[in-house]
């Protein structure tokens, strides 16, 4: 029921969004980067861990890296891991955060107070530090550990935003009307409150995705990737930083990819935020 309730609003929102240059540009570039990450491995000149020449040589478009692997091929293979982990982490963070925020706003009183103060404690922890502490304790972190860590570190931030948006909605009369009819609390949240938060939450999701990529890449750079041998944009920067003077492309190429992707997702998020502000009726 909640899906059908929000369905009619979604297409019009997306259409409005596509009319906005900022969003349209960000959206297209994001799609291109995603398409690159998914399809590029099929066209790479070399395999993911195949040596193409001597280390830091000029062979190929972007030269070779510290092990003599082709940088272009590594770049083509290295996107998927980063993007999948980032998207999953963002989803996890959003779901957890929205849950905490909306429940706090809707319940109010003591529940709100306890949830949000606990949330503040989590917020006081630097995002990356929490991830590092756990990762150093684990011997062989698998991909889902990183997803959980990044997602969990997003949750309190999302929760604050979600609570702020929800506070403006739960006091509106249509929510009170649903209460007076005796609707189930879960349905009030799903059918009455959440559909009205779609705009701001989409914008927040875009922003969180940007942070996720940064965080996952940073973890990779610091050496905490799921698979140390596999290509990974963040890890590539770390591996090749010693050769920055002789073979800068080995570092610059992944940096550029991450930069383009974060800028594009940020534009998208900004655009969504603007539309959701304007679109409030």
């Amino acid at each position, binding site marked *: 029921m909640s899906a059908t309730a929000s369905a*009619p*609003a979604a297409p019009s929102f997306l259409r409005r969004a596509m009319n906005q240059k900022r969003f349209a540009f960000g959206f297209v570039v994001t799609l291109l980067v995603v398409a690159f990450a998914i399809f590029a491995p099929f066209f790479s000149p070399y395999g993911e861990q195949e040596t193409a020449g001597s280390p830091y040589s000029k062979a190929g478009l972007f030269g070779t890296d510290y092990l003599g692997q082709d940088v272009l091929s590594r770049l083509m293979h290295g996107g998927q891991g980063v993007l999948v982990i980032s998207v999953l982490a963002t989803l996890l963070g959003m779901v957890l955060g929205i849950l905490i925020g909306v429940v706090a706003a809707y319940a109010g009183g003591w529940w709100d107070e306890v949830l949000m103060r606990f949330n503040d404690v989590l917020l006081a922890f630097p995002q990356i530090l929490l991830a590092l502490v756990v990762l150093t304790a684990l011997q062989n972190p698998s991909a889902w550990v990183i997803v959980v860590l990044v997602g969990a570190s997003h949750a309190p931030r999302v929760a604050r935003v979600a609570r702020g948006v929800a506070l403006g909605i739960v006091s509106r*009369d*249509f929510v009170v009307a649903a209460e*007076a*009819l*005796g*609707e189930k609390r879960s349905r009030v949240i799903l*059918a009455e409150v959440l*559909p009205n938060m779609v705009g701001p939450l989409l914008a927040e999701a875009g922003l969180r995705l940007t942070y996720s990529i940064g965080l996952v890449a940073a973890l990779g750079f610091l050496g905490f990737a799921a698979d140390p041998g596999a290509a990974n944009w963040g890890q590539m920067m770390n591996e090749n930083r010693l050769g920055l003077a002789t073979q800068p492309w080995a570092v610059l190429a992944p940096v550029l990819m991450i930069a383009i992707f974060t800028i594009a997702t940020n534009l998208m998020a900004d655009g969504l935020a603007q539309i959701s502000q304007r679109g409030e009726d």
Partner: protein
Amino acid sequence: MTATRPDAKQQETPRGGLVVEDLGVMLTGRPVDVVDDIDLVLHPGEVVGLVGESGSGKTTVGTSLLGYARAGALISAGKVLLEGRDVLKMPWKEVRQIRGEEIAYVPQDPASALNPSIRIGKQLVELQELRGVGTAESRLQAAREGLAEVGLPNDDEFLRRYAHQLSGGQVQRVALAMAFLPKPKVLVLDEPTTGLDVTTQKMVLDTMAALCRSHGVSALYVTHDLAVVANIADRVAVMYAGQVVELGPKDTIFANPSHPYTRALLDSIPHLSHARALRGIPGRTPAPGARPEGCRFNDRCAYAQDKCRQQVPPLLTVAPDHEVRCVRVDEIGAWDINLGTVPDADPDKARDVILSVEGLDVFYGRKHIVHDVTFDVAKGEVVALVGESGSGKTTISRSVGGLHKEWTGTIAFEGRSLATSARKRSAEDRRRVQYIFQNPYLSLNPRLTIEQIIKRPMELFGLAKGKDATDRVVELMEQVALGSGMLHYQASRLSGGERQRVAIARALAAEPDVMICDEITSALDVSVQGSIVSLLEGLRQQRGISMLFVTHNLALVRSIAARVQILQAGRVVESGSVVEVMDDPREEYTRKLLSNSPRID
């Protein structure tokens, strides 16, 4: 657009005052007129009421007297002559000088016009500094005099206050004092008393009218409230869809309204002296760009003929100073103010009590808001809760509806006492007592369609499902005079009146026995209020639904309710049948309310 005006009138441009000639305002994006063909003269010392419903362009006209059009619109034609000088042709520096100094503006919401972090005295002095009026000492003295003129204290203690330390009426009078300080020649007031209680409203209006007359200031009073205009204006201009449709001396307009729109508007206004069968105006006010050809009112007019659809009628002079924009003005006959009068509700009718409230005390946290309130509602009866803001009327209704749970006492429905909050009540009790909210813009979920909104109570209470439910939705929409074409509209596409009808349909969908109506017409235009009230009256008669009707409008009570509870500061000060209370009030407070209520009868 300008029709040939047969009356080459009043070129004798009076000394002082303001003359508006052929004013037009357009949207910037599209060539669409917001208002057009406005001719208006404000004589010195005269108050002209500019009346219209939302969307009529009255505020647009008001602000264009200051040479201002809001973003997205521009003043495209005409002249605004202040002592022979055209305000619209002046360079902007001069316009800035004139605004406030010669043409002053009092906004609808004075609280937003005063700076909350500057003391009142400082603001009054600052205004003069900005204008370079007087010296340092004389400014403070002038500020004190200004406050005295509007009947406010002017001691140091008052001058040191901030805006939030004043009441709504005081803030409005400070705004009035500020407007009068630079000794303007023309005053534009944009609904300055909307949102004030009748007592404060009366005080502000009297102050304003007295000042205008004593200072020889011409004032344009923009409002949607005909009753207010009847009390203060010398002349009245009625606007509809961007044009003045009728213009004349106040007494003429109210005794002999000649435009069908003016008549329809007057028919939809309740009177204090007797009950009326209120009627609304069918349809809705057309937006700029969607206005019909010919006479703008032709699609809603009972007297419309083919010729009304062909050409925009000119303003015809039917009597000295009385102009009407209707080609059939001589054919539509006379109008009688008592046309809609119906007998008052019979005070001696046998009552079968369905809902009773006894010893109700309501709290917000530690604050004790409502004290020991007792009343009851019989089957098929409308009971009104009346009071000024802060009287606790809405609080009581919310407690009865189970929306507010911090109360003690007994609220009994058919003899069974109800639990405090809606959630603790049985589904059957929740179904049979329905609540309708004041603001239809907040009470409908903007993401849901009308069908989903109206259908929900049926599904929830197991009254109907699927196809049956949809059929019932269509049926209900017909009952509240909404076309079934709106079935799949989202609430955001509807006008205020239409939304309120949806809210009523949603309440009806639960097949209630009692409806609690919390100021449900206060956010709506009078013509819409008229149709909503007649809809409720029909429901009461056909379905025998009882209503608890919360309002601040005593005239409305006379027309809709059988019994009334007058509330003051959380206590019932007087109660009884409407006829007795209103014709023969026993309490001082009730008398004060009645005498302060603006009336046209």
